[in-house]
């Protein structure tokens, strides 16, 4: 275990990684387990999950009942440090005043980054998702196929632990038998949506989430993940023993001190540090990737936030995994005579094709769920069931007015811990009761609400991109990003379809639909970035003129620089990106190891 400072860090590393989230964590893990010497730079502070996670604090123990504020946008107990939609001293710019063209950027300044608070939804891309252009002529194909990535999905799922079912549906691949953990039993609201959604043709199946529901198989998994590497097997086995299965309490968004869910800080970094090969340097804000006269990257200059001074580390390989847009920013800020427009930007495509997930949500109040006896609905701290996209045939037949699909994330809080808004606005049902009648009404309606969130695929477009702002700099003088955003008709029509579907489901179960008052889909579509699935900006491809990296996330222009976050995604399937980020990071790290061994890097 080594947390280092600019003073105590080595002078040279095999690999310097910028960013400690899903991409950086996985890259560090794979490299360190196989013997590479790695330095991980993290812009935020160190973060101790075991000591800092609020596991059983109630909402009532937090200021303002735990509700979100401009200091903690997702609520007081959310595992985000110095982050959110705005970060002190680190602005970003919107190119347009129009709220419909605004991009929102969630950042986190802590070890493990956004993996500490994410939803743990871990869906594999399917075969279609890697070849979208071939299917409908829109966007770009990946230079790899599902078959290339599948073995890495297997590895990542075995390493982090994912619960899910064994359904194998169109473009929604099953994992090989024995890899997933058993899914938790559904809650009532989820069963209602399964029953009534099912009647409308919506398939509702077990969600896949990175939460372990049984102890990690420390005997059989390590040899599969690290064949011919007994030391790595031993280290991983020991660490797996320290992870406890979910005990069905406290929301995952707070992080998990018993390490039942995946966060980089509880799954990737501890075994990587146990190898002795990983140094971690926190409070290190990357400013620039340095280059030699041949255009090869030599290291990273970063701001030591504790002192405000610049420092530099050298690496044979530089991995950028700072989150898609932050990685783009670092490339654009790494200018040289050779790369006047930013590192790796000979194609002019760095910053282009930023994609988020298409989202909207609505829900309803369900009379059948009123007045139910007490029951524990906490479960796995997130959804147990979801609905994958199901209208492939209708779409192929031209019956839909948008391309690509969405899955439905089910919000069935049931009788989970009351928060500030649990009983807010109840007068729509109570006609304004107060006093003893209000207390009876609260008991009656508690647990009778469901919601559905649509999470769909956005097609990359020319008008959604980021670039350096010519004027604005952050508090260390580093130029910041300016975002341009526009949804196409595909996305707008898609959210209209979502809302229609959700209303049909709610009404079919006798419920009253509750949704945002907006009627124009341009207003109720979530803003760009708001779903926090932003990817792209340095897309991978088969042609150096039309892409920034190759299939390994390796810059076409600079062979010792790799991107292992969402930046190289040339499309953004409706499947949440984190699992794919990790699978590709593992794959890229294997390639780096191989190339180092061959002397190519």
């Amino acid at each position, binding site marked *: 275990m080594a947390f280092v400072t600019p003073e105590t860090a080595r002078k040279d590393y095999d690999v310097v990684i910028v960013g400690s989230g899903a991409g950086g964590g996985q890259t560090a893990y794979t490299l360190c387990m196989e013997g590479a010497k790695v330095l991980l730079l993290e812009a935020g502070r160190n973060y101790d999950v075991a000591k800092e996670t609020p596991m059983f604090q109630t909402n009532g123990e937090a200021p303002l009942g735990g509700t979100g504020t401009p200091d903690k946008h997702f609520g007081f107990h959310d595992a985000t440090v110095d982050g959110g939609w705005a*970060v002190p001293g680190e602005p970003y710019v919107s190119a347009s005043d129009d709220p419909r063209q605004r991009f929102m950027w969630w950042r986190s300044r802590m070890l493990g980054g956004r993996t500490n608070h994410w939803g743990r939804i871990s869906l594999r891309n399917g075969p279609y998702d890697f070849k979208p252009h071939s299917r409908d002529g829109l966007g770009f194909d990946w230079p790899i196929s599902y078959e290339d990535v599948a073995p890495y999905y297997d590895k990542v799922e075995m390493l982090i632990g994912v619960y899910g079912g064994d359904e194998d549906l169109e473009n929604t691949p099953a994992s090989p038998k024995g890899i997933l953990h058993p899914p938790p039993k559904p809650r009532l609201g989820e069963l209602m949506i399964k029953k009534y959604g099912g009647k409308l043709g919506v398939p509702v199946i077990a969600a896949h989430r990175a939460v372990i529901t049984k102890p990690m198989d420390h005997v059989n998994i390590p040899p599969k993940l690290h064949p011919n590497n007994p030391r790595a097997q031993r280290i991983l086995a020991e660490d797996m023993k320290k992870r406890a299965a979910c005990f069905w309490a406290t929301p995952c968004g707070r992080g998990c001190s018993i390490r039942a869910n995946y966060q980089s800080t509880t799954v990737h970094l501890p075994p990587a540090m146990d190898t002795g090969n990983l140094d971690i340097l926190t409070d290190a804000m990357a400013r620039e990737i340095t280059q030699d006269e041949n255009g090869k990257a030599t290291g990273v200059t970063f701001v030591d936030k504790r002192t405000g001074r610049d420092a530099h580390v050298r690496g044979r390989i530089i991995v950028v995994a700072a989150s898609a847009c932050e990685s783009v920013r670092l490339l654009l800020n790494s200018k040289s005579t050779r790369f006047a427009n930013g590192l790796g930007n000979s194609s002019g495509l760095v910053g282009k094709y930023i994609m988020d997930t298409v989202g909207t949500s609505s829900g309803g109040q369900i009379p059948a769920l009123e007045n139910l006896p007490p029951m*524990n609905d906490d479960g796995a701290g997130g959804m147990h069931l979801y609905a994958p996209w199901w209208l492939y045939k209708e779409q192929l037949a031209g019956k839909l007015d948008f391309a690509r699909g969405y899955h439905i994330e089910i919000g069935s809080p049931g009788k989970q811990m009351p928060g500030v808004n649990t009983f807010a606005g109840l007068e729509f049902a109570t006609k304004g009761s107060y006093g003893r009648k209000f207390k009876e009404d609260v008991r009656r309606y508690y647990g009778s609400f469901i919601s559905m969130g649509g999470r769909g695929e956005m097609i990359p477009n020319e008008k959604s991109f980021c670039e350096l702002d010519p004027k604005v700099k952050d508090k260390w003088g580093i130029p910041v990003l300016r975002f341009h955003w526009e949804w196409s008709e595909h996305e707008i029509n898609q959210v209209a379809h979502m809302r229609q579907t959700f209303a049909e489901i709610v009404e079919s179960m006798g419920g009253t639909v509750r949704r945002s008052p907006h009627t124009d889909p341009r207003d109720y579509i979530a803003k760009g970035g708001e779903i926090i699935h932003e990817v792209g900006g340095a897309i991978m491809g088969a042609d150096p003129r039309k892409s920034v990296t190759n299939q390994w996330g390796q810059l076409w222009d600079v062979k010792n620089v790799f991107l292992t976050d969402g930046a190289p995604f040339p499309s953004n399937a409706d499947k949440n990106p984190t699992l794919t980020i990790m699978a590709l990071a593992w794959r890229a790290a294997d390639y780096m190891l191989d190339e180092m061994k061959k002397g190519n890097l």
Partner: protein
Amino acid sequence: MNTPELPRIDRRTAIKWMLTASASLALAPHISFGEHVATVFDGAGYGTDPLLNKSYKPGDFWPLTLTPAQRQTVAALCDVVIPADAKSPSASAVGVHDFIDEWVSAPYPVQVSDRKLILEGIEWIEAESQRRFGIHFVNTIARQKTVLCDDICYEPEAREEFKEAAKFFARFRDLTAAGFYTTPQGMKDVGYIGNVPLGSFDGPPPEVIKRLGLDEV
């Protein structure tokens, strides 16, 4: 009415704080991007890195600012919204007026906006009580409180002259419920039985699943 009176901050501190709050409000972004630059909240809140695994109480992060008279009215009105019954105590008995004091004293934009609504509403309630009954709201009897609150408890059906007060009441009811149902007593009232570690998650009771026709799903 014997609302326990709680220690208050001194007036000077309160004024100093209010000045800070209004100054920061002027700077606060309201998610307006100003020069198209996303800015951050820089008011006197709990900051972007508060200690999370700790239990807090109103007043820990920013001073409470309601006057004793306002607190009494708030406590009395809380108890009109959530009185004691066989199952749980009243709102003020579990400190919901403290929660509302914390809320309206907070420096964040939503709370600053609620502060105006709540303080004006409290003032209106008091004035209306004086006008109708000639006494302080806290001294009215239950029936008088009901007569008054019936006029403002549901905005869509409130008479024109009560619309504004009804908006206040709706928000006040939301805040009272927020404060009450996040206490142990409130959570017990609605039958929340989670937040305990379990060896297994067994799902909803089988008889309920059956009753709802979900056993074949």
